[in-house]
């Protein structure tokens, strides 16, 4: 694929992610996965999971992190030089932010009229529970044979789930799981 076609496709995908990514954070994952793993196949499920892991251990929003990472890796993996990857990275990060910029500019102008608007409240009454379903689907879509290779994977899953429900620090849990992976495999 030509470089410019790739840039355009990346831009469109991440603009879409920014525009339809309601709920922030994990709720945006199935949309990102649908676009870049299933549809365009720019990266594999396990690579995508690794990006989520990196996002869980670094402070920034997951949508930015995926945009920045995939912009770079999709371009360089097509055989283009690293500098074009940096440009791809900037394009994706920019693309994912534009819908927010446009919408928030409009919303700020009408702020107090929108706040108690019955139509918006009503749309949100279905959208909010739907977002919980999206987060659940993000988890389900990541349960693949590449990510869960054997019973040991499920033991790690169970242990981290229990520890996290007891408010253990996610960064510590990722770190410990990495150490366990190194020891077990």
């Amino acid at each position, binding site marked *: 694929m030509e470089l410019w076609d790739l840039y355009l496709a990346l831009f469109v995908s991440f603009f879409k992610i920014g525009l339809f990514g*309601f709920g922030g954070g994990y709720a945006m994952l199935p949309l990102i996965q649908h676009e870049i793993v299933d549809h365009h196949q720019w990266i594999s499920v396990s690579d995508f999971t690794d990006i989520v892991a990196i996002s869980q251990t670094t402070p920034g929003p997951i949508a930015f992190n995926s945009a920045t990472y995939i912009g770079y890796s999709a371009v360089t993996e097509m055989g283009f030089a690293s500098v074009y990857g940096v440009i791809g990275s900037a394009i994706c990060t920019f693309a994912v932010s534009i819908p927010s910029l446009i919408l928030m500019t409009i919303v700020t102008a009408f702020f107090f009229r929108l706040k108690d608007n019955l139509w918006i409240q009503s749309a949100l009454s279905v959208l909010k529970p739907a977002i919980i379903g999206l987060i659940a689907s993000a988890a389900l879509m990541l349960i693949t044979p590449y990510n869960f290779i054997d019973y040991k994977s499920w033991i790690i899953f169970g242990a981290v789930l229990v520890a996290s429900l007891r408010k253990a620090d996610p960064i510590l849990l990722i770190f410990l799981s990495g150490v366990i992976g190194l020891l077990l495999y």
Partner: protein
Amino acid sequence: MIPLIRNEVVNKKGWLGDEEFMDMLAIAQSMPGPIALNTALFVGNKRLGFKGSLFSGAGVILPSFIVILLIAMVFTQFKDNPVVERIFKGIRPAVVALIVAPLLSLGKSAGVKWKNLWIPVVVALAVWQLHISPVYIVLAAILLGIFYLIYLKKRVNK
């Protein structure tokens, strides 16, 4: 991240009042896109108009952009290294567990009850098993909410 934003915007800089911050947060969370970005854009716009939101937006994007770009440049080199691969074999199930863990409390705060539990269940199955794009899910949810209001209004008028 939200307590951090609140401390900076309300307590330290006094850009927004406490109540204004809570209202703004509700809006930022109901708009698409990362909540941190939406918050930054709102505050920037409030203080300096559109120009202000460009600066506050850049401010919230740049740190993670630089960090993740560096990680991407390094990580794409070492991704296939056997040691790195072993580490990530342990990490991947943990990633999924960290997504599952907050579901219950998030569900509660999103107002999921027995009555509307079907919504998240149908959504999760549709995206996971039928590979329906979340774009359509979001559009359908918004339309459903609006139709429900129209239905309620008609019933009241009768």
